[in-house]
């Protein structure tokens, strides 16, 4: 039995004479949190809240689009909904959720006592609260929320009211939070791994976050640049994007998408990491091609910097530019395919069971690949000319972001919830959540491929009659999907947080590997206060 674990949790510290603080309780525990587990919990709960807010906006959009004609909102408000749905989901739900996973799991997985910069960690989280309030509150400002699409193209943004400035400010704050979080993650991973855990023995989740953190540091400042230029164009007499003053609206798009493309990989790489942990655990077989997975992830990250203009095929760039970006984008399909093959090879000849984490992980592989293929089709520029700015694009990115990132997060929650809370979720409920989500998701987004191919444009509050049927189907699916997530919160998350359920063993998953399974369930407030001694595979703590 290892002597390095603190078996007393956060209650008694009487015999620990090398630190002399009292574990905080009440609101101070959360506001002044420096513990990676607490901060992880804060991030996860925050992001789930934002998921619900963004989800309500989505349902309002789908309710309006249920039938042709304007029934509920006017087009101006509709555009506010589409814009804020995007901003809230990207910056408020997906990104902070992955940071929450990083906070909870990285120190546990590398045998570190906490993140490198515990107080900066606190600041990174709490910055998000005023940012979110500003973002959501922008609906109540004069003129309503920004209505220029989450991509905030100039010069349309120059016409927006004061909420645009609030939105820019909020995004600056969230960007700062992400950058600080990434610094924390990089330093923690590079410096605080337990002795014997070389980089090539580190869990895949840590690898994907290490790479993601570098991407974040590289591109968040670029977004900051683009939105600051928008701000100065709006108020301080500059003409970056205003042609009347010699500026170029397309330059905004270049700068935005130089951020925007790596951003979407930022939103998927940690998902890849989670899936790479779960599939081996439930196939009872090591991840196939670990090194290859590391290289593939790195290739994807590097390539992600040179493909941005595939979002701009119709802006009028010379054909050479279109060709280059088409080739580079199609190239990214290769390392992504390699990853899919490696996961399938992990499953092959394994001894699989299909508890809920595995259902979501396998579901991820299946549905994310569909999204990947539609991405490949969009990459082919002559076809993109027909599909740009249509619902085909909406279908594509929801497949990779919802059926991709979100499903991987659900997989991670089910996988690690016993470790976080000490109780098992109900397997029957988990399966219900999975199937309900999978079916309603596909009902919602599959018809959107048809709508896009038929030419229905994005960000339309009303549409020609011929698009009515598929829109109606999508709306029905959307409401089903939304209710499934409410079910998830009420019947999986809440009971677990309240400690209701079968007590969880230290390692509830028979073949799971990793240092997080070497500590009790729930994980004590302090873990690995001294670096553990590891076996040669760096997956087990030895005496």
């Amino acid at each position, binding site marked *: 039995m290892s002597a390095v674990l603190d078996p007393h949790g956060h209650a008694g510290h009487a015999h620990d004479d090398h630190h002399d603080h009292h574990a905080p309780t009440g609101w101070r525990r959360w506001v002044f949190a420096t513990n990676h587990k607490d901060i992880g919990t804060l991030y996860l709960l925050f992001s789930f809240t934002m998921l619900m807010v963004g989800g309500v906006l989505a349902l309002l959009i789908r309710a309006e689009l249920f039938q042709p004609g304007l029934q509920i909102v006017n087009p101006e408000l509709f555009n506010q909904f589409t814009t804020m749905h995007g901003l809230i989901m990207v910056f408020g739900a997906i990104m902070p959720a992955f940071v929450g996973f990083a906070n909870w799991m990285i120190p546990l997985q590398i045998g570190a006592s906490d993140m490198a910069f515990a107080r900066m960690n606190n600041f990174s989280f709490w910055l998000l609260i005023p940012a979110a309030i500003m973002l959501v509150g922008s609906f109540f400002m004069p003129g309503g929320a920004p209505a220029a699409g989450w991509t905030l193209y100039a010069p349309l943004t120059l016409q927006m009211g004061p909420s645009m400035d609030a939105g820019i400010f909020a995004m600056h704050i969230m960007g700062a939070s992400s950058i600080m979080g990434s610094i924390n993650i990089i330093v923690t991973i590079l410096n605080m791994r337990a002795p014997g855990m070389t980089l090539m023995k580190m869990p895949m989740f840590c690898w994907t976050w290490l790479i993601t953190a570098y991407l974040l540091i590289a591109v968040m400042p670029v977004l900051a640049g683009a939105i600051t230029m928008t701000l100065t164009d709006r108020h301080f007499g500059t003409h970056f994007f205003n042609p009347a003053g010699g500026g170029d609206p397309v330059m905004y798009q270049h700068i935005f998408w130089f951020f925007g493309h790596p951003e979407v990989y930022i939103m998927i790489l940690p998902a890849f990491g989670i899936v790479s942990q779960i599939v081996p655990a439930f196939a009872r077989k090591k991840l196939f091609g670990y090194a290859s997975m590391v290289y593939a992830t790195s290739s994807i990250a590097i390539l992600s910097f040179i493909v941005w203009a595939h979002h701009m095929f119709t802006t009028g760039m010379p054909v050479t530019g279109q060709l280059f970006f088409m080739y580079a984008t199609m190239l990214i399909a290769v390392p992504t395919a390699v990853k899919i093959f490696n996961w399938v090879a992990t499953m*092959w000849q394994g001894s699989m069971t299909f508890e809920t984490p595995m259902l979501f992980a396998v579901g991820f592989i299946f549905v994310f690949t569909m999204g990947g293929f539609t991405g490949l089709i969009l990459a082919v520029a002559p076809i993109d000319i027909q599909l740009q700015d249509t619902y085909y694009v909406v279908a594509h990115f929801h497949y990779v972001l919802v059926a991709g990132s979100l499903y991987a997060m659900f997989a991670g929650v089910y996988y690690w919830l016993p470790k976080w809370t000490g109780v098992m979720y109900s397997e029957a409920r988990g399966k219900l959540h999975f199937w309900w989500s999978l079916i309603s998701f596909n009902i919602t987004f599959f018809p959107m491929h048809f709508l896009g191919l038929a030419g229905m444009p994005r960000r339309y509050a009303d549409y020609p009659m011929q698009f009515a049927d598929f829109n109606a189907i999508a709306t029905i699916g959307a409401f089903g999907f939304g209710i499934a997530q409410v079910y998830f919160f009420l019947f999986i998350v809440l009971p677990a947080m309240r400690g209701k359920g079968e007590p969880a063993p230290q390692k509830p998953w028979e073949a799971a590997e990793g240092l997080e399974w070497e500590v009790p369930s729930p994980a004590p407030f302090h873990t690995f206060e001294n670096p553990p001694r590891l076996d040669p595979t760096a997956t087990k703590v030895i005496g």
Partner: protein
Amino acid sequence: MKSNWRNKYKPANLLLAAGAAFSGAAHAVNDLPGGPAVRQLNLPVGVTRIAEEQYFLHWALMILCTVIFVGVFSVMFYSIWKHRKSVGHKAANFHESVVVEVVWTVIPFIIVILMALPATKILVAQKDTTNADLTIKVTGYQWKWGYDYINGEGEGLAFISTLDSSHRAMSDAGAKGDIPNDYLLKVDNPLVVPEKQKIRIITTANDVIHAFAVPQFGIKQDAIPGFVRDTWFRAERTGDFYGQCQELCGKEHAYMPIHVKVVSAEDYTAWVDVKRKEAAAKQDDPNKVWQLPDLLARGERVYAANCAACHQANGKGAGPIKPLDGSAVVLDNDHSKQLHILLNGQNNGAMPAWRQLSDTDLAAVATYTKNSWSNKTGQIIQPAEVVAERGK
């Protein structure tokens, strides 16, 4: 402050909408030839060679992707079936193989190159706008299209193409009852072009970025303010073809459709002739002194076609859109105030500029607002005043 919501009774509206849908109240929609088909599943074959090639390339890629998808996931589902603990399968031990990694890196790489070859060919063809028979400049406005024939037969013709205002009203009313097949696609002045000729479309914009697209031609080109871009098409058949604005451009983004009428060469020549005569007749003399009733009648038409979509037929506006009925600016004796707004816009383009309307049209519509609804100023603005205001 007026509410942004359609009306106070939105829950009732929601239920109504749901009820209408579930009552099977079929809107009896039909396919629109040259536009979308009901429950259309795929790209249109189109009427240009480029559109056809895009269609076939898409089919080829879809089949290729489906084959790969079925292949990979057959393996996965087989594995899920056979390699389960519950059927007693024991896990094997292998976890890496350089050979396998190389093979399944190289093969996708080759597949991707094979996909890129035909795509390159089509893309290069799409970009070649040289040697056009007819060149038309398309300008995106908030929220309509302007067409200028700048080179070739019909040179000099210019007009604005706006969504039919009854369709806009239908949208506001919730698209109830008998809705035409070209709902949201019908315009007052379609773009007319001859068949079997290479038409070069130059795009630009007046305010924000728009995008000109016609799926049946296989074209889409952003219209960017201050810049010119181009694309081309050659329609191999006559007919009516439709598209919509494809870049978010503000609140009426969904309401600026594109209707291209492709006609035979003879019909085109005849049309050009008619249009030239109309343009000559419409040349309003800006020095003409109008009488109030005539000007009001003209102003009412201009208002319905341009202003009613936002300011409403009753002049009361909605939400952030200011009412004209009872507006201080409209009632003011100083005509400059209202004319300045009409010519230059206001609130950063939320009220767009209407410079492109003729002096007579602007004088007429301003006069109309000053003498309609509860506004009874008796004021009249002559076109000459607008000319003077432009000059300031």
